[in-house]
């Protein structure tokens, strides 16, 4: 017999965006059903690097990122766990004077957003960050950025939503979705039918399937950031490290393991990806060069995930252009973890008020022509 659930809002995808949206919607009093094909927070939200970073984002993301920052500060209250979240600071390294200039320019451009960036260079840099020695001429520190354990944070949002009364259905793929009058009808096999007034498309790298179903093709491609972790090491690094211009990034987890990322894995199929051998070896070489402290350690695991990327590397957030009461939030292009809960809150506002208090114009879906083809 088919189970029929009637609710205010159906959420497709239980990552950090969908899970937090479900939580905030419940706190506003909406009835919510969340469908997750796998386990909540098991895809990109749960297997990313774990950087909780505002610094370096395009300016148009900073208002949402600041809101997310406030939510991260309330994790124990919201989720009942701190999920190893630490405001350790995020230090973006400049490996040349030109890179330092570029960090200084970003500091000036972002001055009104409250990141409190501090440029540290020369002798002071070496004094304050002795672990980094002379491998950078300086850096830009965002003192309240940090890192967290994505395996714990992302499932916890969906769990908190469930505890707040959302119906969270894991191992429940969305097989068909359509409009029926002013309702959305979602079908998972023959077993489950969900009817809702609102629909949130937070299905990560697979969100284009939902968008397609409403005549809204989007240029989304899947890419696979490559990551590796060492065995636990004596503590030598508190701050979360990035490098201006890209390349390797790293953080030392509370247990002592050094987590590093860089390069890309490859797809096994639409749902699964693996680290790529050359990327792994390049990453190890670059990481050992930047962090000589790990030179004599071992990598115990490499991994990657499936993440949706847009051509301009900004997410798509906001109302559908074809279908009333459908809202999208996907395409975070490898930078959705920190901003995710802020986006979840903005989605809840869109449902409640028809608008979000954070500016979302830069993320409109119609910035891409309907016939845009996807290229990585």
């Amino acid at each position, binding site marked *: 017999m088919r189970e029929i659930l009637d609710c205010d809002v159906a959420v497709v995808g239980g990552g950090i965006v969908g899970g937090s949206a479900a939580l905030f919607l419940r706190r506003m009093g909406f009835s919510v059903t969340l469908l997750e094909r796998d*386990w909540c927070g*098991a895809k990109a939200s*749960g297997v990313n690097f774990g950087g909780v970073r505002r610094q370096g984002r395009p300016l148009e993301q900073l208002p949402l990122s600041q809101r997310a920052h406030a939510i991260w500060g309330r994790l124990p209250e919201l989720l009942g766990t701190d999920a190893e979240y630490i405001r350790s600071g995020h230090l973006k390294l400049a490996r040349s004077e030109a890179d330092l200039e570029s960090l200084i320019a970003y500091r000036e451009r972002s001055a009104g957003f409250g990141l409190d960036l501090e440029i540290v260079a020369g002798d002071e840099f070496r004094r304050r960050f002795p672990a980094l020695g002379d491998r950078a001429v300086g850096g830009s520190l965002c003192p309240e950025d940090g890192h967290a354990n994505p*395996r*714990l944070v992302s*499932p916890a949002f969906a*769990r908190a939503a469930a505890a707040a009364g959302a119906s969270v259905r894991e191992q429940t793929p969305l097989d068909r979705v359509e409009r029926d009058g002013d309702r959305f009808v979602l079908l998972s096999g023959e077993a489950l039918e969900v009817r809702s007034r609102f629909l949130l498309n937070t299905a990560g790298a697979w969100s284009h399937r939902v968008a397609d179903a409403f005549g809204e093709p989007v240029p989304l491609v899947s890419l696979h950031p490559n990551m590796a972790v*060492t*065995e636990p090491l004596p503590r030598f690094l508190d701050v979360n490290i990035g490098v201006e211009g890209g390349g390797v990034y790293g953080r030392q987890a509370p*247990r002592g393991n050094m987590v590093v990322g860089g390069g890309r894995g490859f797809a*096994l199929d639409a749902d699964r990806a*693996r*680290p*790529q*051998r050359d990327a*792994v*070896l390049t990453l*190890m*070489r670059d*990481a*050992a060069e930047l962090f000589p402290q*790990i*030179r*004599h*350690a*071992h*990598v*115990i*695991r*490499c*991994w990657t995930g499936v993440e949706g990327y847009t051509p301009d590397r900004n997410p798509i957030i906001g109302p559908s252009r074809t279908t009333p009461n459908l809202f999208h939030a996907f395409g975070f292009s490898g930078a959705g973890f920190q901003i995710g809960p802020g986006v979840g809150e903005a989605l809840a506002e869109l449902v409640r008020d028809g608008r979000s208090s954070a500016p979302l114009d830069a993320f409109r879906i119609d910035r891409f022509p309907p016939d845009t083809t996807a290229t990585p």
Partner: protein
Amino acid sequence: MSAAPHTLLKPVIVGAGPAGIRAAEALVAAGLRPVVIDEAARWGGQIYRQPPEGGFVRPKSALYGFEAGKADAVHRAMATIRDRVDYRPRTLAWNCEERALDLLCDGATEVLPFSHLILATGATDRVLPFPGWTTPGVFTLGGSQVALKFQGCAVGRRVTFLGTGPLLYLVAYQYLKAGVEVAGVFDTAPFDAQARAAAGMLRDPATLAKGLCYVGWLRAHGVTIRNNVRPVRVEGGERVEALVWTQDGREERTPCDAVAFGLGLRSETQLADLAGCRFRFDAMDRAWLPERDPAGRSSVAGVYLAGDGSGIAGADAAEAAGERAALALLEDAGLAFAHERAATLDHKLARIAAFRRALSAAFPFPDDWAGAIADDTMVCRCEGVTAGALRAVATTGQAREINRAKALTRAGMGRCQGRMCGAATTELLARALGTGPDGVGRLRAQPPIKPLPVAAEPASGGSAS
């Protein structure tokens, strides 16, 4: 498949135990020059492991007991073909991607493409935790045997043997023969299981006779042998002082300075996983194993499986399966196929499989053990995850399968990547969720399959051919 010139074939064998060596021998006989990758410094595998070269010398009869003849034959087979294979000792195959292996040897990495791959990756001990199992002086049965065969030393002066399976009695016998005091042999299997299974084991009377001989020898030398035993705890802080155990509700304490324990073996399947092989649950091994047809073909064309690495069947089966997989490879490559020999091997493998079923009935897995593990007992020792922590994520509905339990608790996330604790985690979760070990999924393999030095550099000169 159409015939390919020999020179275009690049067969690679992983593992130089009985399966890998017999596979190599068959390929060499057909005029091929396989690469043989092995982690050990000398060929022989775990069962026929050779002592280090240039060190002490012990006769094979002392090292391998009744199996000395077989060990010698396997060693000689490899010595005979040594010049006709590209033998790579001390080499770890840490990844498989796009029909090439990633190797690590002496700190250098190398990419080795293959046209055909025979995985003969062997097995390690299967262990379940109990209070005190991480105390210094507690070893696995296989580890205790390696100490004797490879290092020429015992794990203690007065050793108790705990667990079940043929290795329990074999290693106890080898220790006794080596002059070590055997404080007791404690089998978790009920005695009547062995009596009932004896009929089935008559299919292979020689092997049965050897087993009975080990037991007889132990008894004749006054060694305490008990059945239906469960461990209570290991006592001792810096070092093992005693094993406390129960039999039919009676608790006893056996003073000793070492414990060797194991509950059979588990297959090393990670490379097969990375090679893309399809897996199935095997009820007898209580494990997910790569599928293989009777000849050793996996679900991936050109990838073959032989020996304990794809299902526990022992050294004799490994020899036959290694050769059989090589014959399948030759057939698939369009080379001369030895029909009669293949039929003989198929028959032999079927006979061993029947014996193996009887053996598994004689030494049943103690499936009540996992449920009895106290909450504060460490299950994943790399990451310090207790039984209680694992049960908590299961009973609160947070984890209904093993990869999620790993993500939430870190069990299986450390140096061993679940190779040591995976079986225990599976059994414990299954118990907590009220399902069988087939109901909790399997840990996905990720490269590297063993820790990879960050400083590893690509070998100069690129890949050899």
